[in-house]
């Protein structure tokens, strides 16, 4: 346990190393440090502009398809998320530019589509992993459906949902580099410049800075996440839960 007491330490250290590399390259002909820092800020903003709506939509869909009324929508939502994930963001950007013009629009769309599936999958998995006997108990004790969601379902699902959000954010930060193709200034800009001018240092600088930002995002979210204080779904004492599941099966059979 001690080794993973600070899970955010490694990604933040890596981020610092890569950041130092990117800045160091500024001294040998790549983009100057100030410009790089400015691009990093815009890059982060663009990534958030794509990931935040992806997260909201993914959460909303995930909650909706796990409700009794929304359950029939589950296959459609899964298919949508899988399709959105299957199309490479570069292609989305390329296809969206004619419709939306150059700039942030196509990139935000690409990031939204790319980030949707990890959040949706994690949300659904997390909600389904909530012990059924805890839910039954909540209903039987007199929680309203919303009260049950807010006080039992959501807190029990939260740690797993957070994993999905982190994946989406890291994907988003890393992928936002393709924004350079749509003319949005990002850390992809030095990469594109380097490819055009056959300047490998620029490519390396952009790649290192993008990776640094992605690792930093991972580290920050890991640091912000509440420690999993026995909250995970499997933490309920194992034996009664197994019995509860057997019981649930029995009820299914009755139905």
């Amino acid at each position, binding site marked *: 346990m001690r080794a993973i007491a600070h899970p955010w330490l490694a990604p933040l250290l890596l981020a610092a190393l890569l950041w130092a590399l990117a800045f160091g390259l500024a001294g040998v002909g790549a983009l100057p440090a100030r410009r790089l820092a400015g691009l990093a800020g815009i890059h982060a903003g663009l990534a958030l502009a794509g990931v935040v709506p992806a997260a909201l939509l993914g959460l909303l869909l995930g909650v909706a398809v796990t409700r009794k009324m929304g359950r029939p929508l589950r296959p459609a939502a899964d298919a949508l998320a899988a399709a959105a994930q299957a199309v490479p963001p570069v292609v989305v950007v390329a296809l969206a530019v004619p419709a939306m013009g150059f700039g942030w629009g196509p990139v935000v769309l690409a990031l939204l589509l790319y980030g949707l599936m990890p959040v949706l999958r994690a949300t659904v998995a997390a909600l389904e992993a909530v012990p059924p006997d*805890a839910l039954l108990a909540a209903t039987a004790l007199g929680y309203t459906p919303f009260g049950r969601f807010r006080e039992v379902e959501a*807190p029990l699902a939260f740690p797993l949902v957070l994993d999905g959000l982190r994946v989406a954010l890291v994907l988003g930060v890393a992928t936002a580099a393709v924004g350079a193709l749509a003319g949005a200034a990002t850390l992809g800009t030095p990469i594109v410049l380097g490819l055009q001018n056959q300047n490998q240092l620029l490519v390396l600088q952009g790649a290192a800075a993008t990776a640094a930002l992605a690792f930093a995002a991972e580290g920050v979210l890991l640091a912000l996440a509440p420690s999993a204080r026995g909250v995970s779904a499997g933490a309920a004492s194992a034996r009664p839960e197994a019995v509860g*599941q057997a019981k649930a099966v029995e009820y299914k059979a009755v139905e």
Partner: protein
Amino acid sequence: MIRFKAVGVRFGATEALADVSVTVETGVLCALVGPSGSGKSTLMRLVNRLIAPSSGQVLVRGADVMAQPAPALRRSIGYVMQSIGLFPHRSVAENIATVPRLLGWPAPRRKARVAELLALVQLDPGLATRRPAALSGGQAQRVGLARALAADPDILLMDEPFGAVDPLTRRDLRAELRRIHAETGKTILLVTHDPEEALELASQIVVLRHGRVVADGAPAALVGSTAPAFARALLGGEQPGLRRLSLVPAREALAAAPAPEGAPRLAAGASLADALSRMAETGAAVLALEGEAGSLRLAAILERGR
């Protein structure tokens, strides 16, 4: 009081309950017994609207449950289940205080009530801050019982509450339940597949089979020779005669004639099975009963075994 009036429940094509009419009077501990799939849990879940009747009516305290908002109804009825269902993200104290919190009790009152309940179910007050994962099976079930009793409901539903604990703990918990029932006079509906548990705890037993009521009555009557064969076989086991004798107080077979000098004496609360056992041990066919003038004779005991 709980009354089922010609209740039927269907799940799709399956008929889980058909034409069930049962009345459980206030203060009675009623056991619902029957094989798996007989509908005993379904019958119990009608009381707090976890399941809605397809036909008929369920009356709780005289009012139709379907005419009451489900959350309010459920907060007024305690519920204990085999899988316990403690909330893993909440401490023992928070778990116990669930319904009082839903009812809007102020924090100091909740805290006092939690302390009271921990004492009632004989749990160490130091456990209050623990999470359920840190409890043993027996402790968790006691917390589950305390949580069900938290807002002092007059009706308690227990769905195989002692099924998942070891036999020793089960015996303790049964004794606990008997004590709590005696102290509080709550109406208790207990689902169990253990006939001994039903006979030991209940003053009324409802036997279900294939969703219908096979028998409904006092434990001693349901193991007697006039009981329906299915109920007698289920509850009586291999020795229905002995089971029945164990349920009848020795006083009932007392004859006016005094016991002979030196006859073995039985304790005042003994059952007829105790009397028979004492006769087998001592070889005496006549016993005296503590605090009574008459005598207990073998023939009178055997007569009541049927």
